[in-house]
């Protein structure tokens, strides 16, 4: 049966696509420009459960960990930098957690890159675990305009 999906109002198309499963969303991105735009729009990251930043395990590195909410792939985070990312999925193939560790001189680009992809996002819980002045300064810029429900900016536990 052919479905002339695009005959429906856009809001309803998005409502239908909302119920498409993870693999279906990936496939829809390959169908055409319009379906890719719809999926990418729906998969925007608007809520981060937990964001943790600290000095990395290795000297002169920074580490960031994002715990995501929702059942959709985080397409918004695609970029060259994502090649470095390690991510964890749940049993449904849902992305739940993303970790990245980069050299100190790359942290600025990393944070700018992430920030550009979450223009409007709520961070439920933020832990910033570093005394490094550069990181403090970068994170202040990063958080500008974002909603943070709970934050802990002065933790000196070991990463």
């Amino acid at each position, binding site marked *: *049966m*052919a*479905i*002339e*999906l*695009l*005959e*429906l*109002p856009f*809001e*309803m198309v998005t*409502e*239908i*696509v*909302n*119920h*498409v*499963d993870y*693999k*279906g969303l*990936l*496939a*829809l*991105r*390959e*169908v*055409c*420009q*319009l*379906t*890719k735009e719809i999926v990418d729009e729906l998969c925007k990251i608007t809520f981060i459960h937990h964001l943790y930043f600290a000095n990395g395990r290795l000297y002169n590195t920074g580490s960031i960990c994002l715990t995501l*909410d*929702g*059942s*959709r*792939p985080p*397409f918004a985070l*695609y970029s060259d930098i*994502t*090649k470095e990312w390690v991510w964890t999925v749940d049993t449904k193939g849902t*992305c739940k957690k993303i970790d990245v560790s980069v050299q100190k001189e790359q942290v600025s680009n990393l944070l700018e890159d992430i920030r550009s992809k979450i223009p409007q996002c709520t961070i439920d819980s933020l832990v910033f675990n570093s005394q490094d002045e550069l990181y403090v300064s970068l994170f202040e810029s990063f958080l500008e305009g974002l909603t943070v429900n709970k934050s802990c900016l002065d933790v000196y536990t070991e990463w």
Partner: protein
Amino acid sequence: RIYPLMRVTLTTSDGASVTVSRQLTKHSGFIEKAITDMAVDDNAVPLSAVAVDVDDATLKLVIEWLTEHRDDALPYPEKTDEERRADDIPAWDQAFVQKWDTKEDQQQTLYAVITAADKLDIKGLLDMTCKTLANKINGKTVEEMREILQLECDFTEEELAEIRKENAWCEN
């Protein structure tokens, strides 16, 4: 307060009139708002007055669904992204939609019911019909989706290669 025995006369876009119980219309945000806000005389809510193309045949299907779901709890629960799924359509609803499979105009009927559910603000019906359509997409290959959705691939080879690279990253 809803009086279950109160009757409401609905007028369809093609001029038919259907009288139903408030027990059914309480599931329609639109009708309930119309009754409350517009202070409609004689409990008549002319559907055509709001430029909604709900014909008699579609309204009968909507009423059939409402009759089965008259005791559903209100308000309809909001779903989070985590809770969104399409494999939990109740058996009665599946059979209800399945009945149209024998008709040539199944797609048009489904679209008409989805549109009616949206315009009448019947969240349960809208949710179920959207899931039904999503299930026709789930499990299909990209080529099958293009065929089902009647969409042409308008990507360049380079764009398609980039998307496949992104998807592969996500699939892994």
